[in-house]
């Protein structure tokens, strides 16, 4: 009986106290016909055995040198981040409902909110959502709720938003009678042409999603797009990469008044790739929208003696109070990931983070320069990018992917399924963890595949 501390004596005494002959008797209210009998599950493994099994499973994963981004990024995570995040007191605590016995988690969350507000230059941040895609879906729902000016439920959703995010938004808002209007991109620049928004200027638009950086790694004209939203009574939803914000103008400063909501994927801030999760979504907004913000919030207050303390607050927005009319159904969020992100940001600081961002940028620049010199490779878009970019080869992208994988390299992400119009295109990313030699290796491998 792993993890069950009861001795035979314990059981005997407990049953005696209860005055029942057996544990079975305690299930007496359950109709007998419901019992399922022996399940077909494998027999119990001792810790030593499961450790051996999982090590073997881990060996079946194949480490590839990572040049893929597309929503999940390999960044170096300082050892201190998880050494502290993994402490039992963080790891094995529940949501901080009893504030006085949860000041550790609560203060971390308050600091997290502060850092995210600082990074995005927004007023407030919630304490996390599930991931980047759900943060965008929640932002869309929130925009509709908060936009008193608009009577429509029309959302402009650029095609330069991550296709996975778009499909999640579709699933989540499907039952809410929202209309997601796809906004095309300029095939030359790979960005939204702000002029193209003019066709929507007469219509009532509830919100415009503005991705920075966009899915192709490119920089959108965020000021113009935000201005357009402001001028047209639409909520400007910034979908941002937090790492990029160390370098790029933050959503709070876009256009004249800034975006209304900023959301995105927090994984770049100290969270391992881990096959896709757990990551965390973040969401920040202007004070005016606070009461429509989904998710938990931690506030600073004082105790009975006037001493500073922290507590969950504005819970009237949440499901456990407002039930069917809450701002979201979210309950369990991604707390521990946020703890790691807080420690990551504290460790890196403004300058450390900027340097990481810049190194990613420079590495991808150098990769793309290398590739551009290869016969049979061309850059697909010419504008500036942050740390991802798209190239096209004269051979099928699949061959490049497979060929590089054989050599232990994850070449990037194939765009053909979502963007057939781009041809044999691959989205590639070189973060700060890639060395010059590795970048050169990548270029050489691509070149030799194309020579074949």
């Amino acid at each position, binding site marked *: 009986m792993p993890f069950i501390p009861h001795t035979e004596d314990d059981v005997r005494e407990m049953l005696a106290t209860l005055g029942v002959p057996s544990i079975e008797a305690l299930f007496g209210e359950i109709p007998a016909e419901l019992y399922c009998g022996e399940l077909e599950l494998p027999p119990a493994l001792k810790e030593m055995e499961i450790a051996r099994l999982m090590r073997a499973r881990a060996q079946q994963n194949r480490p590839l040198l990572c040049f893929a981004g597309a929503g999940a990024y390999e960044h170096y995570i300082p050892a201190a981040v998880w050494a*502290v995040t993994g402490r039992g007191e963080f790891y094995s605590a529940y949501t901080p409902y009893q504030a006085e016995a949860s000041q550790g988690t609560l203060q971390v969350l308050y600091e997290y909110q502060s850092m995210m507000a600082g990074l995005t230059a927004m007023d407030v941040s919630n304490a996390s959502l599930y991931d980047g895609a759900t943060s965008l879906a929640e932002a869309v729902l929130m925009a509709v709720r908060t936009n008193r000016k608009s009577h429509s439920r029309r959302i402009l959703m650029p095609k330069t938003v991550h296709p996975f995010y778009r499909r999640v938004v579709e699933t989540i808002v499907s039952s809410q009678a929202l209309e997601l209007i796809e906004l095309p991109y300029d095939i030359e620049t790979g960005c939204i042409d702000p002029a193209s928004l003019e066709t929507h200027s007469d219509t009532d638009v509830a919100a415009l999603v503005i991705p920075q950086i966009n899915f192709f790694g490119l920089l959108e004209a965020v000021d113009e797009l935000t201005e357009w939203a402001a001028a047209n009574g639409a909520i400007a939803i910034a979908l941002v990469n937090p790492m990029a914000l160390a*370098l790029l103008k933050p959503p709070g400063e876009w256009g004249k008044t800034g975006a209304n909501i900023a959301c995105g994927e927090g994984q770049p801030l100290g969270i391992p790739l881990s096959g896709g999760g757990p990551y965390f979504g973040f969401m920040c907004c202007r004070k005016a929208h606070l009461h429509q913000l989904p998710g938990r919030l931690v506030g600073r207050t004082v105790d009975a003696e006037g001493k500073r303390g922290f507590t969950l607050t504005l819970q009237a927005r949440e499901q456990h109070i407002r039930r069917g009319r809450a701002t979201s159904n979210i309950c369990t969020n991604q707390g521990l990931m946020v703890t790691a992100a807080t420690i990551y940001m504290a460790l*890196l600081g403004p300058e450390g983070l900027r340097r990481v961002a810049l190194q990613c940028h420079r590495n991808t620049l150098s990769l793309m320069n290398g590739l551009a010199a290869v016969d049979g490779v061309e850059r697909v878009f010419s504008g500036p990018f942050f740390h991802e970019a798209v190239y096209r080869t004269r051979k099928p992208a699949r061959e490049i992917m497979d060929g590089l994988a054989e050599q232990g390299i994850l070449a990037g992400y194939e765009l053909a399924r979502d963007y057939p119009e781009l041809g044999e295109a691959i989205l590639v990313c070189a973060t700060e963890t890639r060395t010059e030699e590795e970048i050169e290796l990548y270029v050489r491998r691509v070149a030799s595949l194309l020579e074949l």
Partner: protein
Amino acid sequence: MLIFDRSRRGRAARAQWLPEAGESPVIPDHLLRKSRPSLPEVSELDVVRHYTRLSQQNYSIDTQFYPLGSCTMKYNPKVCHDLANLPEFLNTHPLALERAGQGTLACLYELQEMLREITGMAGVSLACAAGAQGEFAGVLMIRAYHGLRGDSARTEMLVPDAAHGTNPASASMGGFQVREVATGPDGNVDLAALAQAVGPQTAGIMLTNPSTLGVFDQHVQAIADVVHKAGGLLYYDGANLNAIAGKVRPGDMGFDVIHLNLHKTFSTPHGGGGPGAGPVGVNDKLLPYLPLPVVAKDGPRYRMLTEADRPHSIGHLVTFAGNVGVLLRAYVYIRMLGREGLRRVAEFSTLNANYLLKKLVEAGFEPAFPQRLAAHEFIITLKRLAKERHVTALDFAKRLLDYGVHAPTVYFPLLIPECFLIEPTETESKDTLDRFAEVMAAILKEAETDPDRLKSAPHSLSVRRLDEVRAARHPDLAYKAE
């Protein structure tokens, strides 16, 4: 002290600073950041010391008994953490799972299959990030089911009044009207009220069984009949599966769709609020609608099913494949329990709950459902105390903290006044339960003799009672440098 209070301009954890790389040669100036983000500037020791000390201000399973009802706060085996964190698992890029993550996928596939067996459903998807998202996926599947049959009149979702808040929230997020169904005096769903509520407008009912009242609804089959006959579907909130795991299966009770909370029943950690994982299971009726991805086994290789395989799927709910790291922990846990161990979870969590209930009743506490057996949790009400001594459940809860135990869930479910929902879980020993009962009795005595001691509790933590009203009235949600 906040980390910002420790910040000094120019201080830094320099081992983390990459070499200065100037400015971007290509990004236009107007897109660059000019303001310095207000992150703290501190040393590595500052960071380690600050957050280590903060952690010590938490109560947690690793340090305290934590009988928080509905939350299943049991021991999180350390080995689950270590094994999920093997570098080969951690370093796999989500877009390379099929190509380079066959080991991960093997675990996920087997987890899917084991959960299918444990719940008695026909198919399982692991994608949902938490219980509430599982509920939402379930609601969407119910919607899709009726929708594809052209049954568009089904606009109502039935939810018992004792249900967890996420149930109605998920139902309305899924586009349904929520209709509450009353609870009878025995804690079961009031069948008469149900008969009243059900009709052609009923899309389904969301049920937790054992319920959040801590009792197993014996009439679950009757409920299933009524709802099914009316054309509705049954949703099972698996938050309380711990009470019956390995003994009774939601599929066998007649449920069409379910979610599980791996961070409850399967002991993945709560992390101070997450991450969790909320896999969903369905019977044959709903199989086509299961959210993506689902892991399939093609010969020796594993792959992810897509829209091409499952055209009627409700789609994707998260960016990638869900909280894989959490799923791996649950996989390890279930493999360690095995078939026997799983059943014993139910048995011993039930034994602990009933034993503790008995001890508390002996100590003078009033159970919410005196005629009923407890499932893995139970409710006591302090309404007499509130009335006679003006000591609330909250006061009592805060006083518990002084004795080094986390308080049970308070004021939930809402229909029981001044209640404690108490869930000891199977990983706590009789000694711990006995001590808890003693502490409860001691506080009860204090409530009679020195009620102010409770009203002004806690006394021994890093802060005294916090002013929550002020927090909400004057929201201070982010540090601002003066």
